[in-house]
């Protein structure tokens, strides 16, 4: 099938399958899946700028479906999602400006690659340690009868409690997430950092935002996944608009990919019902490692995906 906007020939079945895989990951982990979509589009000869912009457009559609499904399961905190969208958009702009500054300095590829390796590895190692420790301590604890999968515990909980107790005005409550009081600035900071890495490393940066929501803000994992998806709808819509104006979006490719993502996202969302928070976090660990493998490969071979 010929896509005239990006001037490429791609088999639509390939796009549907890629969309389906990313849909499952997105529905289950609350990530955009750009670490797969970007390279998958590049592999078919789509220019890098189109791969980034088109991926964002596809993320909007997939996240709408997954967020709606999560909302029916009670996994979306709308209030938190709206606040986070502001920080994410600001952070994404700051990240994009940092890229421009590095481009002018002439060392953008090296800096971005090393930052990506350190950040992805850091997240993976930390989540592996935390979820493993939580699961081990859960085994020692007597199981309450009728305990729900959504009841979440974390070995990092004591630090989270301290962060929640920081009194920096204005304080807000998040009843859906079970948080009585938290500073709005902490929410904005977490979303700004997520947005910064989204603009700096590309994609939706769900691999940073979802763990941050759990460990820094203290949001239960199921709610973090659902709320992250809702927030991605807003921030990725903004990204799609700006990229489309710059001529980086082939909406026809995004529409075809999205047909597979719809089914995948629904499977991913349903699957979260069968796993407790720490198990979802443990299963999340390989995702940033895929990102590390791709960056290391590009550094060694010089081949750009």
């Amino acid at each position, binding site marked *: 099938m010929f896509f005239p906007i990006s001037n490429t020939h791609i088999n639509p079945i390939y796009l549907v399958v890629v969309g389906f895989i990313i849909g499952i990951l997105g529905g289950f982990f609350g990530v955009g899946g750009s670490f797969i979509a970007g390279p998958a589009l590049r592999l078919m000869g789509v220019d890098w700028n189109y791969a980034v912009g088109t991926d964002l457009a596809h993320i909007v559609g997939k996240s709408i479906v997954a967020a709606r499904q999560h909302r029916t399961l009670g996994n979306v905190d709308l209030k938190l999602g709206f606040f986070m969208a502001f920080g994410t958009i600001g952070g994404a702009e700051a990240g994009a400006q940092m890229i421009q500054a590095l481009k002018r300095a002439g060392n953008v590829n090296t800096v971005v690659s090393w930052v990506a390796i350190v950040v992805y590895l850091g997240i993976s190692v930390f989540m592996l340690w935390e979820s493993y420790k939580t699961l081990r301590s859960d085994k020692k604890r007597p199981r309450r009868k009728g305990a729900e999968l959504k009841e979440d515990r974390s070995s990092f909980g004591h630090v989270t409690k301290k962060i929640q107790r920081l009194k920096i005005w204005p304080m807000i409550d998040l009843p859906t997430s079970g948080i009585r009081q938290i500073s709005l600035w902490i929410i904005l900071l977490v979303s700004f950092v997520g947005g910064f890495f989204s603009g700096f490393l590309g994609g939706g940066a769900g691999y940073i935002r979802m763990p941050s929501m759990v460990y820094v803000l203290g949001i239960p994992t199921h709610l973090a996944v659902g709320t992250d998806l809702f927030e991605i709808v807003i921030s990725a819509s903004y990204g799609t608009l700006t990229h489309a104006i710059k001529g980086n979006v082939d909406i026809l490719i995004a529409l075809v990919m999205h047909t597979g993502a*719809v089914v995948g996202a629904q499977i991913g969302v349903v699957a979260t019902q069968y796993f407790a928070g720490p198990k979802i976090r443990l299963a999340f660990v390989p995702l940033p490692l895929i990102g590390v493998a791709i960056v290391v490969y590009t550094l060694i071979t010089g081949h750009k995906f």
Partner: protein
Amino acid sequence: MNKAETKSVRVFAIELAIYAVLVTVYFFLVLHLLGEWLYRLETQHRITYAVVALSLIIGQAVVLDAVTSFLFRFLRRRWK
């Protein structure tokens, strides 16, 4: 696999088959018709293209979500 799980898998397989037919029709009709128009819009009116692109992906998400949810509900009721 118990009876309920077997039923769910069967319903899902049928849903996928119907969905695949609908998507194939969609590719050949809608995308074929829209392709040339979107291409011209992208080269001549970038801002309009950006708004149309975002509206299309949001619209498709809403419609496909409704279609898959309807198919799943309809098929589950029929197999009861």
